């Protein structure tokens, strides 16, 4: 039965898949290998258990935001407010937990709920008001960062020891941060076949055709932003686990870096193509590049410039690798 199904699949779609999707993911994989090898060559202690644990811990926020961005982009949208959502949910979590271990679960719930609320705002504005995602989320970022300033006017507050502690723990010598990234990958592999995520991808690929095929386009757009907001809420917790205190200004670079990670990860910005796993690889490539810049002893004042140039170069490389198509 499965054999007939495979034979029935049109040959052209297989060729298209090899040509279209594979080029991007091969480029991503190659870049990832280069980045890992270079980072380890320059900084051998990255390979020690402590090195892996602390490296992955600092990568985790960007990895999560990249996954969130990937879901929105695959759905044909864009979220420039991702960094602001991370900032808002992290300060809300800090203020609800007030440094008490017993309130950890309440804090987690608060962070995710904040993310969902922000995603709901974005999703409603984009799907119901039909505003251009780029400018609409740029504007909503202003709203979210303003609210973050209201919740926590200056950096500070204490994060419960249990959150920072769990974040540094290892289960059977595998660091928690690595487990979390693996959990995200597994979560995607399990969930990608669900109706909601298939609808999100269809909407991103061709909204008009999806609409004609009875895909609930508006609800799918809304769902992509809500899902992404929830993941940004988790990223807010990861930020807290790393920093140990709250900061309303955090997340300034996260929106840009998550978009760059998505592009490097082989996800087409026009929607419908790619997978969050590529975005995770893209995030790790970008984060490793800045690790490399740190380890070659660049003066502090040059680091921001070098990081910016790396992002541009990564974008340029992915643009060159992507199939040329006139829109």
């Amino acid at each position, binding site marked *: 039965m499965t054999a007939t199904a495979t034979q029935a699949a049109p040959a052209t779609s297989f060729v298209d898949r090899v040509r279209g999707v594979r080029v991007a993911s091969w480029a991503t994989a190659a870049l990832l290998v280069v980045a890992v090898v270079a980072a380890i060559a320059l900084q051998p202690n990255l390979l020690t258990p402590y090195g892996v644990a602390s490296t992955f811990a600092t990568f985790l926020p960007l990895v999560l935001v990249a996954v969130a961005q990937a879901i929105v982009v695959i759905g044909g949208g*864009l979220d*420039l407010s991702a960094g602001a959502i991370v900032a808002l949910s992290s300060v809300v979590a800090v203020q609800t937990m007030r440094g008490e271990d017993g309130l950890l679960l309440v804090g987690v719930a608060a962070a995710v709920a904040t993310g969902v609320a922000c995603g709901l705002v974005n999703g409603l*504005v984009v799907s119901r*008001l*039909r*505003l*251009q995602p*780029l*400018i*609409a989320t*740029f*504007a*909503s*970022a*202003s*709203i*979210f*960062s*303003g*609210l*973050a*300033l*209201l919740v926590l*006017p200056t950096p500070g507050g204490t994060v419960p020891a249990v959150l920072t502690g769990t974040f540094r723990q290892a289960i059977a010598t595998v660091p928690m941060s690595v487990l979390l990234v693996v959990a995200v990958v597994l979560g995607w592999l399990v969930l990608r076949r669900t109706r909601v995520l298939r609808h999100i991808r269809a909407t991103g690929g061709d*909204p*008009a055709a999806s*609409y004609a095929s009875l895909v609930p*386009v508006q609800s799918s757009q809304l769902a992509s932003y809500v899902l992404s907001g929830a993941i940004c809420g988790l990223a807010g917790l990861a930020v807290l686990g790393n920093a140990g205190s709250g900061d309303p200004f955090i997340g300034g*670079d996260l*929106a*840009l870096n998550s*978009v*760059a990670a998505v*592009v490097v990860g082989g996800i087409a*910005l026009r929607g419908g193509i790619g997978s969050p796993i590529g975005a995770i690889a893209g995030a790790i490539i970008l984060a490793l590049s800045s690790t490399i810049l740190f380890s070659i002893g660049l003066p502090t*004042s*040059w*680091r*921001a*410039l*070098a*990081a*910016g*140039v790396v*992002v*541009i170069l990564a*974008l*340029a490389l992915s*643009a*060159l690798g992507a199939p*040329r198509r006139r829109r």
Partner: protein
Amino acid sequence: MTRVVAILKDPVVVAALIAVLLIAIGGILRPGFASPDQIVDMLRVASFLGIIAIGQTIVVLSGGEGIDLSVGTVATLGAILASRTMAGDDALIVPGVLLALGVAALIGLANGLGIVLLRIPPFVMTLGMLGVVGGLILVVTGGRADGRAAPALVSLVNGRDVLGLPGILLVWIVLGVVVTLVLRRTVFGARLYAIGTSREAARLSGVPVRRVTVSAYVLSSLFAALGGIAMVGYSQQVFLNLADDLTLPSIAAVVIGGTLVAGGVGGYLGSAVGAIVLTVLTSLLTTLAMPEWARIVVQGVVLIALLAVYGRQRRLRS
């Protein structure tokens, strides 16, 4: 009658009415808000945003999802380069301005080439450039901003030398008129509207699409730097984030002015009125002693509300 309705539906007229309304509300709530002195001061502050919005207007008009998210940091960099070069000396104004404009032109060129040759979407390219320019600012200053505006620049912005008005207003008006003439009466302007309406149709009609697109981004960076220089004349001291926050308002000004986000439709007069509306709104919120967070939130809400009025996309069910 239909003529009156048509005029009242014009975004530029609507925006101008909103500005007048805001000033009237301010005058009622806080006597003195609508005084001529206060209004001149608000126009002076609006001129920085207005000059930056010239470039943003050109980029948005050029279509192809054109937008420049780097104008804020480019303006800051321009202000830093100019003020460090002039260091409070009138004789060094020209070299300072030229240096700032030269660097800005290179940044705009990089933006344009990345978009045209590498086909990086404009928002990604200019967002990436925002990071690069931010890094460049740290390299140039070493983290310490110590530039000072020359006295002549300060009196151009802060004085009242031209018929009792600040010189910068005259500069803004001249720039606005020139830009409007360039957009409406020159080949470049016609080509800009053409590629904004349809890149494919423009290309088939022999318009050098790539060259016009690159020019649009170069102009955007140039006007951003000019706006930054004007701003440092106002603040006299330079700061590392002097004009960073003007990116969102520059886009908002363009949208308020009725220029279509999709490109090809609109003009600069609307953006100039948009810059005035936003500045009056900010002054009003400041006068009413609104905290900083509320002002940031209001800015976002205003832009979304305006987009909801002007910038909605088509329904799928047609």
